[in-house]
Protein backbone atom coordinates (compact mmCIF):
# COMPACT_ATOMS: atom_id res chain seq x y z
CA UNK A 1 0.00 0.00 0.00
CA UNK A 2 2.85 2.35 0.93
CA UNK A 3 4.43 1.39 -2.34
CA UNK A 4 1.31 2.23 -4.29
CA UNK A 5 1.14 5.64 -2.64
CA UNK A 6 4.78 6.20 -3.55
CA UNK A 7 4.13 5.39 -7.20
CA UNK A 8 1.11 7.65 -7.29
CA UNK A 9 3.12 10.53 -5.84
CA UNK A 10 5.79 10.06 -8.50
CA UNK A 11 3.14 9.92 -11.20
CA UNK A 12 1.68 13.12 -9.83
CA UNK A 13 5.01 14.91 -9.94
CA UNK A 14 5.63 13.76 -13.48
CA UNK A 15 2.14 14.76 -14.56
CA UNK A 16 2.88 18.31 -13.46
CA UNK A 17 6.21 18.22 -15.27
CA UNK A 18 4.88 16.80 -18.49
CA UNK A 19 1.76 18.94 -18.66
CA UNK A 20 3.91 22.04 -18.25
CA UNK A 21 6.35 20.90 -20.93
CA UNK A 22 3.41 20.07 -23.15
CA UNK A 23 2.33 23.72 -23.00
CA UNK A 24 5.72 24.76 -24.32
CA UNK A 25 6.50 21.95 -26.73
CA UNK A 26 3.13 20.49 -27.61
CA UNK A 27 0.92 23.54 -27.83
CA UNK A 28 3.45 26.13 -28.91
CA UNK A 29 5.75 23.82 -30.82
CA UNK A 30 8.90 24.91 -28.99
CA UNK A 31 10.81 21.70 -28.49
CA UNK A 32 12.83 22.12 -25.33
CA UNK A 33 15.22 19.87 -23.43
CA UNK A 34 15.67 22.38 -20.63
CA UNK A 35 12.74 21.32 -18.52
CA UNK A 36 14.78 19.50 -15.90
CA UNK A 37 16.57 22.80 -15.32
CA UNK A 38 13.30 24.47 -14.29
CA UNK A 39 12.42 21.41 -12.23
CA UNK A 40 15.81 21.55 -10.51
CA UNK A 41 15.76 25.27 -9.86
CA UNK A 42 12.36 24.92 -8.23
CA UNK A 43 13.58 22.08 -6.05
CA UNK A 44 16.77 23.82 -5.03
CA UNK A 45 15.17 27.18 -4.27
CA UNK A 46 12.57 25.56 -2.04
CA UNK A 47 15.13 23.33 -0.34
CA UNK A 48 17.59 26.14 0.27
CA UNK A 49 14.92 28.44 1.64
CA UNK A 50 13.54 25.75 3.90
CA UNK A 51 16.99 24.82 5.15
CA UNK A 52 18.54 28.25 5.53
CA UNK A 53 15.66 30.59 6.28
CA UNK A 54 13.10 28.16 7.64
CA UNK A 55 10.54 30.18 5.73
CA UNK A 56 6.97 28.91 5.40
CA UNK A 57 6.22 26.40 2.68
CA UNK A 58 3.93 28.64 0.66
CA UNK A 59 6.55 31.38 0.54
CA UNK A 60 9.04 28.82 -0.69
CA UNK A 61 6.75 27.70 -3.48
CA UNK A 62 6.17 31.25 -4.60
CA UNK A 63 9.87 32.03 -4.66
CA UNK A 64 10.63 28.80 -6.49
CA UNK A 65 8.01 29.59 -9.10
CA UNK A 66 9.22 33.14 -9.57
CA UNK A 67 12.88 32.25 -9.91
CA UNK A 68 12.16 29.36 -12.21
CA UNK A 69 9.91 31.62 -14.23
CA UNK A 70 12.78 34.05 -14.64
CA UNK A 71 14.97 31.26 -15.94
CA UNK A 72 12.10 30.33 -18.22
CA UNK A 73 12.03 33.82 -19.63
CA UNK A 74 15.76 33.61 -20.25
CA UNK A 75 15.31 30.36 -22.14
CA UNK A 76 12.40 31.76 -24.08
CA UNK A 77 14.24 34.77 -25.38
CA UNK A 78 16.57 32.90 -27.77
CA UNK A 79 13.51 31.30 -29.36
CA UNK A 80 12.83 34.62 -30.95
CA UNK A 81 16.02 34.59 -32.94
CA UNK A 82 16.78 30.97 -33.66
CA UNK A 83 14.71 28.35 -35.32
CA UNK A 84 13.89 24.71 -34.58
CA UNK A 85 17.09 22.63 -34.53
CA UNK A 86 19.28 25.39 -33.23
CA UNK A 87 16.75 26.32 -30.60
CA UNK A 88 16.82 22.77 -29.25
CA UNK A 89 20.57 23.16 -28.96
CA UNK A 90 20.09 26.44 -27.10
CA UNK A 91 17.79 24.73 -24.60
CA UNK A 92 20.38 21.96 -24.33
CA UNK A 93 22.94 24.64 -23.46
CA UNK A 94 20.72 26.13 -20.75
CA UNK A 95 20.14 22.70 -19.29
CA UNK A 96 23.83 21.84 -19.16
CA UNK A 97 24.76 25.22 -17.70
CA UNK A 98 22.09 24.99 -15.02
CA UNK A 99 23.20 21.50 -14.09
CA UNK A 100 26.82 22.66 -13.97
CA UNK A 101 25.97 25.50 -11.67
CA UNK A 102 23.97 23.24 -9.35
CA UNK A 103 26.76 20.69 -9.36
CA UNK A 104 29.76 22.96 -9.03
CA UNK A 105 28.69 25.85 -6.82
CA UNK A 106 29.40 23.71 -3.83
CA UNK A 107 29.32 26.44 -1.23
CA UNK A 108 25.78 27.39 -2.16
CA UNK A 109 24.10 24.27 -3.44
CA UNK A 110 26.15 21.58 -1.78
CA UNK A 111 27.35 20.41 -5.15
CA UNK A 112 27.31 16.69 -5.80
CA UNK A 113 26.69 16.01 -2.14
CA UNK A 114 23.28 17.55 -2.43
CA UNK A 115 21.02 18.97 0.23
CA UNK A 116 19.89 16.52 2.87
CA UNK A 117 17.36 16.89 5.61
CA UNK A 118 14.76 18.95 3.81
CA UNK A 119 11.91 19.37 6.29
CA UNK A 120 8.37 18.30 5.68
CA UNK A 121 6.03 20.94 4.41
CA UNK A 122 3.45 22.67 6.54
CA UNK A 123 0.41 23.86 4.67
CA UNK A 124 -2.01 26.15 6.44
CA UNK A 125 -0.80 24.90 9.79
CA UNK A 126 -1.08 21.24 8.92
CA UNK A 127 2.19 19.36 8.92
CA UNK A 128 2.29 16.85 6.13
CA UNK A 129 4.20 13.97 7.55
CA UNK A 130 2.58 10.89 6.15
CA UNK A 131 2.92 9.70 2.61
CA UNK A 132 -0.83 9.69 2.25
CA UNK A 133 -0.98 13.33 3.26
CA UNK A 134 1.69 14.05 0.69
CA UNK A 135 -0.25 12.21 -1.96
CA UNK A 136 -3.24 14.39 -1.27
CA UNK A 137 -1.11 17.51 -1.57
CA UNK A 138 0.41 16.34 -4.84
CA UNK A 139 -3.01 15.37 -6.09
CA UNK A 140 -4.38 18.81 -5.37
CA UNK A 141 -1.46 20.47 -7.12
CA UNK A 142 -1.86 18.13 -10.08
CA UNK A 143 -5.50 18.99 -10.42
CA UNK A 144 -4.65 22.67 -10.11
CA UNK A 145 -1.97 22.43 -12.78
CA UNK A 146 -4.27 20.64 -15.16
CA UNK A 147 -7.15 23.01 -14.66
CA UNK A 148 -4.91 26.03 -15.16
CA UNK A 149 -3.54 24.44 -18.32
CA UNK A 150 -7.00 23.65 -19.54
CA UNK A 151 -8.09 27.23 -19.07
CA UNK A 152 -5.01 28.44 -20.87
CA UNK A 153 -5.34 26.21 -23.91
CA UNK A 154 -9.02 26.86 -24.33
CA UNK A 155 -8.58 30.59 -24.16
CA UNK A 156 -7.64 33.04 -26.90
CA UNK A 157 -4.13 32.93 -25.47
CA UNK A 158 -4.03 29.20 -26.12
CA UNK A 159 -5.28 29.65 -29.66
CA UNK A 160 -2.43 32.01 -30.40
CA UNK A 161 0.00 29.44 -29.00
CA UNK A 162 -1.32 26.86 -31.42
CA UNK A 163 -1.17 29.38 -34.23
CA UNK A 164 2.50 29.96 -33.45
CA UNK A 165 3.03 26.23 -33.60
CA UNK A 166 1.28 25.81 -36.91
CA UNK A 167 2.54 28.83 -38.76
CA UNK A 168 4.56 31.36 -36.89
CA UNK A 169 5.01 33.78 -39.73
CA UNK A 170 1.27 33.86 -40.27
CA UNK A 171 0.60 34.52 -36.61
CA UNK A 172 3.04 37.40 -36.70
CA UNK A 173 1.43 38.74 -39.86
CA UNK A 174 -1.93 38.58 -38.13
CA UNK A 175 -0.55 41.04 -35.65
CA UNK A 176 0.17 38.80 -32.70
CA UNK A 177 3.20 39.64 -30.59
CA UNK A 178 4.76 36.24 -31.11
CA UNK A 179 7.80 37.16 -29.07
CA UNK A 180 5.77 37.95 -26.00
CA UNK A 181 3.72 34.79 -26.27
CA UNK A 182 6.78 32.61 -26.59
CA UNK A 183 8.50 34.10 -23.58
CA UNK A 184 5.28 34.00 -21.61
CA UNK A 185 4.62 30.33 -22.27
CA UNK A 186 8.12 29.52 -21.13
CA UNK A 187 7.60 31.47 -17.93
CA UNK A 188 4.37 29.63 -17.20
CA UNK A 189 5.79 26.22 -18.05
CA UNK A 190 8.89 26.85 -15.98
CA UNK A 191 6.82 28.01 -13.03
CA UNK A 192 4.75 24.85 -13.09
CA UNK A 193 7.81 22.68 -13.34
CA UNK A 194 9.17 24.49 -10.29
CA UNK A 195 6.11 23.39 -8.32
CA UNK A 196 6.92 19.81 -9.21
CA UNK A 197 10.47 20.44 -8.06
CA UNK A 198 9.29 21.77 -4.74
CA UNK A 199 7.16 18.68 -4.26
CA UNK A 200 10.04 16.42 -5.12
CA UNK A 201 12.36 18.16 -2.68
CA UNK A 202 9.95 17.91 0.20
CA UNK A 203 8.98 14.36 -0.58
CA UNK A 204 12.39 12.74 -0.89
CA UNK A 205 13.83 15.13 1.74
CA UNK A 206 17.11 15.06 -0.16
CA UNK A 207 18.05 16.47 -3.53
CA UNK A 208 21.19 16.36 -5.58
CA UNK A 209 21.99 17.50 -9.09
CA UNK A 210 21.77 14.03 -10.60
CA UNK A 211 18.00 14.23 -10.57
CA UNK A 212 18.07 17.23 -12.88
CA UNK A 213 20.22 16.23 -15.81
CA UNK A 214 19.80 16.34 -19.58
CA UNK A 215 18.62 12.76 -19.45
CA UNK A 216 15.83 13.78 -17.10
CA UNK A 217 14.81 16.53 -19.51
CA UNK A 218 14.73 14.02 -22.31
CA UNK A 219 12.69 11.68 -20.15
CA UNK A 220 10.07 14.35 -19.48
CA UNK A 221 10.02 15.16 -23.18
CA UNK A 222 9.50 11.49 -23.96
CA UNK A 223 6.54 11.39 -21.62
CA UNK A 224 4.99 14.30 -23.51
CA UNK A 225 5.67 12.77 -26.89
CA UNK A 226 4.63 9.23 -26.13
CA UNK A 227 1.57 10.35 -24.21
CA UNK A 228 0.67 12.79 -26.93
CA UNK A 229 1.84 16.32 -27.53
CA UNK A 230 -0.68 19.08 -27.75
CA UNK A 231 -3.37 17.41 -25.70
CA UNK A 232 -4.51 17.74 -22.12
CA UNK A 233 -4.60 14.11 -21.11
CA UNK A 234 -1.80 12.86 -23.31
CA UNK A 235 0.94 13.79 -20.85
CA UNK A 236 -1.05 12.14 -18.08
CA UNK A 237 -1.18 8.87 -20.00
CA UNK A 238 2.50 9.22 -20.79
CA UNK A 239 3.41 9.85 -17.16
CA UNK A 240 1.44 6.84 -15.98
CA UNK A 241 2.98 4.55 -18.58
CA UNK A 242 6.55 5.67 -18.20
CA UNK A 243 6.57 5.79 -14.40
CA UNK A 244 4.91 2.41 -13.98
CA UNK A 245 7.15 0.74 -16.53
CA UNK A 246 10.36 0.49 -14.47
CA UNK A 247 8.41 -0.39 -11.35
CA UNK A 248 6.65 -3.17 -13.18
CA UNK A 249 10.02 -4.43 -14.31
CA UNK A 250 11.21 -4.53 -10.76
CA UNK A 251 8.28 -6.76 -9.91
CA UNK A 252 9.40 -9.37 -12.39
CA UNK A 253 12.37 -9.72 -10.10
CA UNK A 254 15.03 -8.03 -12.13
CA UNK A 255 17.86 -6.48 -10.11
CA UNK A 256 17.33 -2.77 -9.93
CA UNK A 257 20.38 -1.80 -12.00
CA UNK A 258 19.24 -3.98 -14.87
CA UNK A 259 15.72 -2.65 -14.45
CA UNK A 260 16.96 0.93 -14.67
CA UNK A 261 18.76 0.27 -17.93
CA UNK A 262 15.93 -1.80 -19.30
CA UNK A 263 13.57 1.06 -18.62
CA UNK A 264 15.82 3.37 -20.64
CA UNK A 265 16.05 0.85 -23.44
CA UNK A 266 12.30 0.57 -23.52
CA UNK A 267 11.51 4.22 -23.46
CA UNK A 268 14.23 4.98 -26.00
CA UNK A 269 12.76 2.29 -28.17
CA UNK A 270 9.25 3.63 -27.63
CA UNK A 271 10.44 7.06 -28.68
CA UNK A 272 11.84 5.71 -31.93
CA UNK A 273 8.81 3.52 -32.53
CA UNK A 274 6.36 6.33 -31.95
CA UNK A 275 8.33 8.69 -34.17
CA UNK A 276 8.20 6.11 -36.92
CA UNK A 277 4.60 5.05 -36.67
CA UNK A 278 2.65 7.53 -34.59
CA UNK A 279 4.52 10.73 -33.95
CA UNK A 280 1.63 12.28 -32.18
CA UNK A 281 1.76 9.70 -29.41
CA UNK A 282 -1.24 8.11 -27.74
CA UNK A 283 -3.59 11.04 -27.46
CA UNK A 284 -1.71 13.84 -29.11
CA UNK A 285 -2.71 16.44 -31.58
CA UNK A 286 0.70 17.64 -32.70
CA UNK A 287 3.12 15.47 -34.58
CA UNK A 288 6.05 17.88 -34.77
CA UNK A 289 5.40 18.30 -38.43
CA UNK A 290 7.18 21.61 -38.83
CA UNK A 291 9.26 21.88 -41.91
CA UNK A 292 9.57 18.66 -43.85
CA UNK A 293 13.08 17.32 -43.90
CA UNK A 294 14.01 16.56 -47.45
CA UNK A 295 13.04 13.09 -48.48
Amino acid sequence: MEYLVHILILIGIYIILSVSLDLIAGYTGLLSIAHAAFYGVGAYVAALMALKFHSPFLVNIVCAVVLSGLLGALVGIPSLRIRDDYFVIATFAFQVITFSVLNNWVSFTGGPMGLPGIPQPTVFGLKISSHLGFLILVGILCALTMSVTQRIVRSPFGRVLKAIREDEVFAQAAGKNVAAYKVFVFVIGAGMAAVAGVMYAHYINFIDPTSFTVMESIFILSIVIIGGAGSLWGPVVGAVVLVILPEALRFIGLPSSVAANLRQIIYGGLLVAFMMWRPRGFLGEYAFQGKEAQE
Partner: protein
Amino acid sequence: MGDYSQLVANILISAAGIFIFAVALLLAYRVGGMLNFAYGALLTCGAYSALVLKNYCAFPVFAAAAVGVIVTVGLGCTMENYVFRVLRRKGASSLVLLLASLGLYISLVSIIAMVFGEGSKTLRSEMVSEGIAVLGTRITLPQMLAMATSVILVICLPLFLRYTRIGRAALALASDFDLARIAGIHTERVRLYITAIAAGLAGVAGVFAGFDRNIIPTMGMSALMAGIVTVVIGGGRSIAGVALAAMALGVLQNLGAWAMSAQWENTVTFGVLLAFLLVRPEGVMGKRLTKATV
Protein backbone atom coordinates in the same frame (compact mmCIF):
# COMPACT_ATOMS: atom_id res chain seq x y z
CA MET B 1 59.21 26.10 -21.52
CA GLY B 2 58.35 22.44 -21.21
CA ASP B 3 55.17 23.45 -19.43
CA TYR B 4 53.99 25.55 -22.32
CA SER B 5 54.78 23.02 -24.98
CA GLN B 6 52.80 20.38 -23.07
CA LEU B 7 49.92 22.83 -22.95
CA VAL B 8 50.13 23.37 -26.70
CA ALA B 9 50.32 19.63 -27.22
CA ASN B 10 47.27 19.12 -25.02
CA ILE B 11 45.35 21.74 -26.94
CA LEU B 12 46.17 20.06 -30.23
CA ILE B 13 45.27 16.66 -28.83
CA SER B 14 41.93 17.89 -27.48
CA ALA B 15 41.18 19.71 -30.71
CA ALA B 16 41.98 16.59 -32.73
CA GLY B 17 39.63 14.40 -30.74
CA ILE B 18 36.83 16.96 -30.89
CA PHE B 19 37.41 17.60 -34.58
CA ILE B 20 37.07 14.00 -35.74
CA PHE B 21 33.72 13.54 -34.04
CA ALA B 22 32.50 16.99 -35.03
CA VAL B 23 33.17 16.23 -38.69
CA ALA B 24 31.02 13.13 -38.36
CA LEU B 25 28.22 15.25 -36.90
CA LEU B 26 28.65 17.83 -39.63
CA LEU B 27 28.37 15.22 -42.36
CA ALA B 28 25.27 13.78 -40.74
CA TYR B 29 23.79 17.24 -40.41
CA ARG B 30 24.45 18.46 -43.91
CA VAL B 31 23.74 15.26 -45.80
CA GLY B 32 21.18 13.80 -43.42
CA GLY B 33 19.34 17.03 -42.80
CA MET B 34 19.20 16.48 -39.08
CA LEU B 35 20.99 16.90 -35.81
CA ASN B 36 21.81 13.28 -35.15
CA PHE B 37 22.25 12.39 -31.49
CA ALA B 38 22.66 8.75 -32.40
CA TYR B 39 26.25 9.47 -33.35
CA GLY B 40 27.02 9.72 -29.67
CA ALA B 41 25.96 6.10 -29.45
CA LEU B 42 28.13 5.29 -32.46
CA LEU B 43 31.16 6.75 -30.74
CA THR B 44 30.41 4.71 -27.65
CA CYS B 45 29.91 1.63 -29.80
CA GLY B 46 33.31 2.13 -31.40
CA ALA B 47 35.03 2.28 -28.04
CA TYR B 48 33.24 -0.73 -26.58
CA SER B 49 33.58 -2.87 -29.69
CA ALA B 50 37.30 -2.33 -29.71
CA LEU B 51 37.32 -3.15 -26.01
CA VAL B 52 35.47 -6.41 -26.45
CA LEU B 53 37.68 -7.48 -29.31
CA LYS B 54 40.82 -6.69 -27.39
CA ASN B 55 39.86 -8.10 -24.01
CA TYR B 56 37.59 -11.01 -24.87
CA CYS B 57 38.62 -12.06 -28.35
CA ALA B 58 42.33 -11.57 -27.87
CA PHE B 59 42.70 -9.28 -30.83
CA PRO B 60 45.87 -7.27 -31.02
CA VAL B 61 45.11 -3.69 -30.10
CA PHE B 62 45.17 -2.09 -33.51
CA ALA B 63 43.18 -4.87 -35.12
CA ALA B 64 40.62 -4.49 -32.36
CA ALA B 65 40.41 -0.80 -33.09
CA ALA B 66 40.02 -1.33 -36.83
CA VAL B 67 37.32 -3.95 -36.50
CA GLY B 68 35.63 -1.80 -33.87
CA VAL B 69 35.37 0.97 -36.42
CA ILE B 70 33.94 -1.47 -38.96
CA VAL B 71 31.30 -2.57 -36.46
CA THR B 72 30.40 1.06 -35.90
CA VAL B 73 30.05 1.66 -39.62
CA GLY B 74 27.73 -1.32 -39.78
CA LEU B 75 25.62 0.01 -36.95
CA GLY B 76 25.49 3.49 -38.46
CA CYS B 77 24.40 2.21 -41.84
CA THR B 78 21.78 -0.01 -40.25
CA MET B 79 20.28 2.93 -38.41
CA GLU B 80 20.33 5.02 -41.55
CA ASN B 81 18.65 2.36 -43.60
CA TYR B 82 16.01 1.14 -41.20
CA VAL B 83 15.15 4.24 -39.23
CA PHE B 84 16.15 7.52 -40.81
CA ARG B 85 15.50 6.61 -44.40
CA VAL B 86 12.06 5.29 -43.53
CA LEU B 87 11.28 8.40 -41.54
CA ARG B 88 12.39 10.69 -44.32
CA ARG B 89 10.27 8.85 -46.80
CA LYS B 90 7.29 9.54 -44.58
CA GLY B 91 8.04 13.21 -44.77
CA ALA B 92 9.26 13.52 -41.22
CA SER B 93 10.42 16.93 -40.11
CA SER B 94 13.91 17.50 -38.84
CA LEU B 95 12.50 17.64 -35.33
CA VAL B 96 11.01 14.17 -35.66
CA LEU B 97 14.35 12.90 -36.96
CA LEU B 98 16.10 14.53 -34.03
CA LEU B 99 13.73 12.90 -31.57
CA ALA B 100 14.19 9.53 -33.22
CA SER B 101 17.95 9.92 -33.00
CA LEU B 102 17.57 10.79 -29.34
CA GLY B 103 15.56 7.62 -28.80
CA LEU B 104 18.22 5.59 -30.57
CA TYR B 105 20.94 7.17 -28.47
CA ILE B 106 19.14 6.35 -25.24
CA SER B 107 18.36 2.74 -26.12
CA LEU B 108 21.77 1.91 -27.55
CA VAL B 109 23.69 3.48 -24.69
CA SER B 110 21.45 1.74 -22.17
CA ILE B 111 22.02 -1.62 -23.85
CA ILE B 112 25.74 -1.01 -23.55
CA ALA B 113 25.33 0.01 -19.92
CA MET B 114 23.30 -3.09 -19.19
CA VAL B 115 25.82 -5.41 -20.77
CA PHE B 116 29.01 -3.78 -19.57
CA GLY B 117 28.00 -2.04 -16.39
CA GLU B 118 28.56 1.55 -15.45
CA GLY B 119 32.17 1.13 -14.42
CA SER B 120 34.93 2.73 -16.40
CA LYS B 121 37.27 0.77 -18.58
CA THR B 122 40.06 1.63 -20.92
CA LEU B 123 41.90 0.51 -24.00
CA ARG B 124 45.14 1.75 -22.50
CA SER B 125 47.96 -0.52 -21.63
CA GLU B 126 51.19 0.36 -19.83
CA MET B 127 53.13 0.51 -23.03
CA VAL B 128 50.70 2.85 -24.66
CA SER B 129 50.02 5.16 -21.77
CA GLU B 130 53.58 6.07 -21.07
CA GLY B 131 53.83 8.10 -24.16
CA ILE B 132 56.73 9.18 -26.20
CA ALA B 133 58.79 12.24 -25.49
CA VAL B 134 58.50 14.74 -28.31
CA LEU B 135 59.96 18.24 -28.14
CA GLY B 136 59.70 18.43 -24.40
CA THR B 137 56.18 17.01 -24.18
CA ARG B 138 54.77 13.57 -23.65
CA ILE B 139 52.40 12.31 -26.29
CA THR B 140 51.04 8.81 -26.54
CA LEU B 141 50.88 6.89 -29.77
CA PRO B 142 47.08 7.04 -30.06
CA GLN B 143 47.20 10.77 -29.45
CA MET B 144 49.68 11.19 -32.26
CA LEU B 145 47.53 9.04 -34.49
CA ALA B 146 44.53 11.17 -33.60
CA MET B 147 46.35 14.33 -34.56
CA ALA B 148 47.59 12.74 -37.77
CA THR B 149 44.09 11.59 -38.60
CA SER B 150 42.76 15.09 -38.08
CA VAL B 151 45.36 16.59 -40.34
CA ILE B 152 44.62 14.01 -43.01
CA LEU B 153 40.91 14.66 -42.61
CA VAL B 154 41.13 18.38 -42.84
CA ILE B 155 43.13 18.12 -46.05
CA CYS B 156 41.65 15.09 -47.73
CA LEU B 157 37.98 15.28 -46.91
CA PRO B 158 37.38 18.59 -48.69
CA LEU B 159 39.36 17.19 -51.65
CA PHE B 160 37.25 14.05 -51.59
CA LEU B 161 34.08 16.11 -51.54
CA ARG B 162 35.16 18.30 -54.37
CA TYR B 163 36.88 15.90 -56.71
CA THR B 164 35.16 12.54 -56.47
CA ARG B 165 31.79 11.68 -57.93
CA ILE B 166 30.29 10.71 -54.61
CA GLY B 167 31.77 13.74 -52.93
CA ARG B 168 30.31 16.10 -55.47
CA ALA B 169 26.99 14.31 -55.26
CA ALA B 170 27.04 14.78 -51.49
CA LEU B 171 27.77 18.47 -51.86
CA ALA B 172 24.93 18.79 -54.35
CA LEU B 173 22.58 16.97 -52.01
CA ALA B 174 23.53 19.22 -49.12
CA SER B 175 23.19 22.33 -51.19
CA ASP B 176 19.86 21.77 -52.91
CA PHE B 177 18.22 18.46 -52.39
CA ASP B 178 15.45 18.60 -54.95
CA LEU B 179 17.74 19.84 -57.65
CA ALA B 180 20.12 16.99 -56.88
CA ARG B 181 17.30 14.48 -57.30
CA ILE B 182 16.28 16.10 -60.56
CA ALA B 183 19.83 15.95 -61.79
CA GLY B 184 19.63 12.22 -61.38
CA ILE B 185 21.71 11.80 -58.27
CA HIS B 186 20.85 8.65 -56.41
CA THR B 187 20.33 10.44 -53.14
CA GLU B 188 19.73 7.40 -50.97
CA ARG B 189 22.92 5.74 -52.06
CA VAL B 190 24.92 8.89 -51.57
CA ARG B 191 23.44 9.27 -48.11
CA LEU B 192 24.42 5.73 -47.27
CA TYR B 193 28.01 6.26 -48.37
CA ILE B 194 28.35 9.47 -46.45
CA THR B 195 26.75 7.84 -43.42
CA ALA B 196 29.32 5.07 -43.67
CA ILE B 197 32.12 7.63 -43.66
CA ALA B 198 30.59 9.61 -40.84
CA ALA B 199 29.91 6.52 -38.76
CA GLY B 200 33.46 5.40 -39.36
CA LEU B 201 34.74 8.74 -38.12
CA ALA B 202 32.56 8.47 -35.06
CA GLY B 203 33.94 5.01 -34.41
CA VAL B 204 37.49 6.27 -34.85
CA ALA B 205 36.79 9.08 -32.43
CA GLY B 206 35.43 6.52 -29.99
CA VAL B 207 38.51 4.37 -30.25
CA PHE B 208 40.82 7.32 -29.69
CA ALA B 209 38.73 8.41 -26.72
CA GLY B 210 39.02 4.87 -25.44
CA PHE B 211 42.78 5.21 -25.35
CA ASP B 212 42.88 8.70 -24.07
CA ARG B 213 40.13 8.75 -21.50
CA ASN B 214 37.92 6.31 -19.72
CA ILE B 215 35.33 4.20 -21.47
CA ILE B 216 31.99 4.66 -19.76
CA PRO B 217 28.49 4.34 -21.17
CA THR B 218 27.93 8.09 -20.97
CA MET B 219 31.03 9.02 -22.94
CA GLY B 220 28.85 9.67 -25.96
CA MET B 221 27.03 12.51 -24.26
CA SER B 222 30.23 14.41 -23.52
CA ALA B 223 31.34 13.91 -27.10
CA LEU B 224 27.95 15.10 -28.35
CA MET B 225 28.19 18.22 -26.25
CA ALA B 226 31.63 19.15 -27.54
CA GLY B 227 30.70 18.09 -31.06
CA ILE B 228 27.47 20.06 -31.25
CA VAL B 229 29.14 23.19 -29.90
CA THR B 230 31.93 22.79 -32.43
CA VAL B 231 29.61 22.32 -35.38
CA VAL B 232 27.43 25.29 -34.44
CA ILE B 233 30.27 27.66 -33.68
CA GLY B 234 32.05 26.52 -36.82
CA GLY B 235 29.10 27.57 -38.89
CA GLY B 236 27.61 24.19 -39.67
CA ARG B 237 28.69 24.35 -43.27
CA SER B 238 32.37 23.76 -43.89
CA ILE B 239 35.03 21.45 -42.59
CA ALA B 240 37.40 24.36 -42.22
CA GLY B 241 34.88 26.02 -39.94
CA VAL B 242 34.65 22.92 -37.81
CA ALA B 243 38.43 22.72 -37.66
CA LEU B 244 38.71 26.29 -36.44
CA ALA B 245 35.98 25.75 -33.90
CA ALA B 246 37.60 22.54 -32.66
CA MET B 247 40.85 24.41 -32.12
CA ALA B 248 39.02 27.15 -30.28
CA LEU B 249 37.30 24.61 -28.08
CA GLY B 250 40.60 22.84 -27.46
CA VAL B 251 42.10 26.11 -26.33
CA LEU B 252 39.09 26.89 -24.16
CA GLN B 253 39.09 23.53 -22.47
CA ASN B 254 42.77 23.45 -21.70
CA LEU B 255 43.22 27.06 -20.71
CA GLY B 256 40.07 26.80 -18.71
CA ALA B 257 41.49 23.91 -16.75
CA TRP B 258 44.57 26.02 -16.10
CA ALA B 259 42.83 29.20 -15.09
CA MET B 260 39.96 27.77 -13.13
CA SER B 261 38.71 24.45 -11.96
CA ALA B 262 38.04 21.91 -14.69
CA GLN B 263 34.47 21.48 -13.50
CA TRP B 264 33.38 24.76 -15.03
CA GLU B 265 34.51 23.61 -18.46
CA ASN B 266 31.01 22.70 -19.59
CA THR B 267 29.55 25.96 -18.34
CA VAL B 268 32.11 28.00 -20.24
CA THR B 269 31.76 25.88 -23.38
CA PHE B 270 28.00 26.16 -23.44
CA GLY B 271 28.09 29.78 -22.42
CA VAL B 272 30.16 30.48 -25.50
CA LEU B 273 27.70 28.45 -27.56
CA LEU B 274 24.77 30.45 -26.26
CA ALA B 275 26.59 33.68 -26.98
CA PHE B 276 27.15 32.53 -30.55
CA LEU B 277 23.58 31.41 -30.99
CA LEU B 278 22.30 34.76 -29.84
CA VAL B 279 24.72 37.04 -31.54
CA ARG B 280 25.81 35.15 -34.61
CA PRO B 281 23.77 32.01 -35.11
CA GLU B 282 25.48 31.27 -38.35
CA GLY B 283 28.72 30.70 -36.49
CA VAL B 284 32.12 31.76 -37.60
CA MET B 285 31.89 30.65 -41.18
CA GLY B 286 28.26 30.04 -41.83
CA LYS B 287 25.55 31.60 -43.87
CA ARG B 288 22.67 33.51 -42.35
CA LEU B 289 19.60 31.32 -42.07
CA THR B 290 16.25 32.89 -42.64
CA LYS B 291 13.16 31.80 -40.80
CA ALA B 292 10.99 31.52 -43.86
CA THR B 293 11.64 31.84 -47.53
CA VAL B 294 8.70 32.42 -49.76
